[in-house]
């Protein structure tokens, strides 16, 4: 027996709802989040306050938000470019790790007498590391027509293992009591702090700059126009004479470089050394961010801040209320679920069809 419900496309999907959909999804996530807290036997109002309000009640809280949003923005803005061009790079996490490895490798070369000029060199190395990792995907897709979804995803695990191997081997800190981690980076190889008294570093400004540049590129530059055409209508791109291969390489290298910078900033920013887990899944969360942000660079910035809040709120909920930190993942999943549902219901409507049998 089938349900007497059917999804029917709406004749005219509301345009304004395209942006209302993420807002609606956020509100539904909060409501569902409150319900979950109630089921866990906690006061939902108190829980949501810890999750949403407390992180933002101090300057330090805002700085932490910016700090967590930085890698998300960098990854998501790059993914926006890929997804707009119909290139399904879901390996930003791997490109981030590759960036951390390359950037961290250069950072390890710094000595006590090094100058701050080291930082740009580290970030360039991080960008190149991320781009190189993405280039593997681009090459396999270009040369062998390999599916970029699978290849980029699998390369995440390769990057994770490569990092683990390095910090347990050649880069292991001799004075680290056997912990699998590198030595702490020298001061000259650390991200300059943006806001004194907090951990917020220059990386945040770089991330915002990246969002502005990518927006300019997509809206005003020929290359961005070509990316949008190839994503919307590949045949029209061929007709216009835009090279699909070139755009594939461009979008993957750009998003790989941005994810690489995110990895470098994390390594020489808040972490200060290389450890086996350089990222709590920023590269994957950035996929959700890109879609919640409607594949728009500025939307991605807003969505990154929201997602960063989930990370911080999850930590606070754990330390203050004894809630499991897995709540962050649950909230992320809820958000994506509600967003997809809202998007579907904007273009479709549910119809009640008690007896839809053709007579």
């Amino acid at each position, binding site marked *: 027996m089938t349900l007497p419900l059917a999804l029917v496309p709406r004749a005219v999907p509301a345009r304004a709802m395209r942006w209302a959909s993420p807002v609606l999804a956020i509100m539904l996530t909060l409501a569902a989040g409150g319900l979950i807290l109630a089921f866990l036997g906690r006061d939902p109002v108190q829980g949501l306050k810890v999750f949403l309000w407390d992180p933002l009640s101090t300057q330090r809280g805002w700085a932490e938000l910016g700090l967590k949003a930085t890698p998300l923005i960098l990854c998501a803005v790059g993914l926006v470019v890929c997804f707009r061009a119909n290139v399904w790079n879901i390996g930003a996490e791997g490109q981030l790790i590759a960036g951390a490895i390359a950037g961290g490798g250069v950072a390890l070369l710094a000595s006590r007498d090094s100058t701050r000029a080291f930082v740009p060199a580290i970030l360039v190395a991080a960008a190149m590391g991320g781009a190189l990792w993405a280039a593997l995907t681009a090459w396999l897709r270009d040369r062998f027509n390999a599916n970029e979804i699978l290849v980029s995803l699998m390369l995440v695990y390769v990057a994770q293992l490569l990092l683990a191997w390095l910090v347990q081997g050649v880069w292991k800190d001799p004075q680290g009591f056997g912990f699998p981690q590198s030595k702490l980076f020298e001061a000259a190889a650390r991200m300059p702090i943006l806001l004194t008294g907090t951990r917020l570093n220059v990386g945040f400004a770089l991330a915002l700059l990246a969002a502005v540049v990518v927006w300019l590129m997509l809206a005003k530059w*020929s290359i961005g126009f070509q990316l949008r055409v190839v994503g919307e*209508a590949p045949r029209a791109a*061929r*007709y216009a004479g835009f090279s699909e291969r070139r755009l594939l390489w461009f979008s993957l290298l750009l998003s790989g470089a941005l994810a690489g910078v995110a990895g470098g900033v994390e390594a020489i920013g808040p972490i200060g050394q290389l450890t086996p887990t350089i990222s709590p899944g920023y590269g994957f969360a950035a996929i959700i961010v890109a879609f919640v942000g409607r594949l728009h660079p500025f939307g991605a910035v807003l969505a990154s801040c929201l997602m960063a809040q989930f990370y911080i709120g999850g930590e606070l909920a754990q330390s203050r209320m004894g809630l499991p930190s897995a709540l962050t993942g649950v909230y992320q999943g809820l958000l994506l679920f509600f967003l997809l549902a809202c998007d579907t219901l904007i273009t479709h409507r549910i119809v009640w069809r008690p007896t839809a049998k053709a007579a």
Partner: protein
Amino acid sequence: MTDRLSLHGVTKRYADVIANDAISLQVGAGEIVAVLGENGAGKSTLMKIVYGVVRPDEGRVFVDGREVVIGSPAKARALGISMVFQHFALFDSLTLAENVALALPPEPLKALTARMQQLAVRYDLEIDPSKRVHDLSVGERQRVEILRALMASPRILILDEPTSVLKPQAIEQLFKTLGQLAADGVSVLFISHKLDEILRLAHRCVVLRGGRVVATVDPRRESEASLARMMIGADPPAIAAHDSSPGEVALDVKRLDTTRAIERQHWLHGLDFSVRHGEIVGIAGVSGNGQAALMAVLAGERLDLDGTIRLFGDDITRLSTGGRRMLGLRYIPEERLGHAAVSAFPLVDNVVLTRDELRAGGLIRSGAARRLTSTLIEHFRVKARGPEATAGSLSGGSLQKFIVGREIDAQPKVLLVSQPTWGVDVGAAAAIRNELIALRRAGCAIVVVSEDLDELFELSDWLFVMSKGRLSPAVRPREIGVQEIGRWMSGLWPQSEAL
């Protein structure tokens, strides 16, 4: 006797337009009723209402005298109504047989394929049921649509401009079939913009204009001119007269061959031809015989070929699409959405698509693009809200005028056009043909691929016929008859090498 199908006061409103305004219409058993109207007159909406795709806001629908609510195509099919769409509703990644199977009650695929082949032979619709839809040309897709509708043994058959892609002989055959179906008691609703077909085929003709029925006439008492006047509300623009004075060879093709390319349906076998400045060369043929490959190769979208292509004497065989455009060779593909234009993009972005000067230096010159778009909309009388309207929101005819305008305005030296007036109403078609003739007078070399023979006879200085990837000898249109061309379309042209 009750009517097979009867509509009373059917009205359908969209946001700011009334597509159908209190339309009443009766179709008797075994009657062939033609619905005539320009694009945007409301024909397609009306047919979609009958087929259950669109729900009317007001009005009543009766089938065999009983009032019905046709809520879905499934309901329509249950009532014995089948439809051949103008815009195809086929699944690209499935085979023809699978596509047909989807529209019918469950039946073993083998039996269905056999039945399909029988019908195909009976109605002279060349198809291969095991082919996948994405490998088919527009013409082949239409044949599948017709066949699919016939497979359901309908009592009411709706056809939306079904003949525009058929060979003359096949049109004869289709008309014979429709006549037979009518004699068997099937009611036929036939949408066409070809006035001569309506005159020949229809028992009754309903003329729509601006969503209203403006006349219901007996076509036997009308002429093409009188029908056109009713439809447009004025006399159609006349086609400008020809005068031929061709110049130097502009485009020259030698031993063009794609048999090394993998896909068989794109095989071209050693084609030789040339086009002079100030000359229109027409290429006739049932689509799916290599025309798509020929255009792709000439435009530079495919470079996997043998032989040489010369433009103004220079070898451009390996030159990219953009490079050819820079030299003055422009192309208007047959598919508007997804090929010639990006559906979700506003018109202004669709101008940027092929007008390279608006992208010069890596920056989009949006001010200039907007001005050019407004000029094109105005000059080519495109019905659009403005430069920001998306390409997908325009009617087929308007979008075609826009695309033709975009390419013509760039003053091409060589123009390739595929199906210039496919699905376009009489007024717009005449406008587009006049633009092509004006361009030819200005010295442009033009290649027109079309399945509309009337159009080719009207436009061409020289005519070729394409069949199975081969090209017939060139012929002057006035020296050959329609029936002869029809035979050539099956590849039966004289084998003499004299061109």
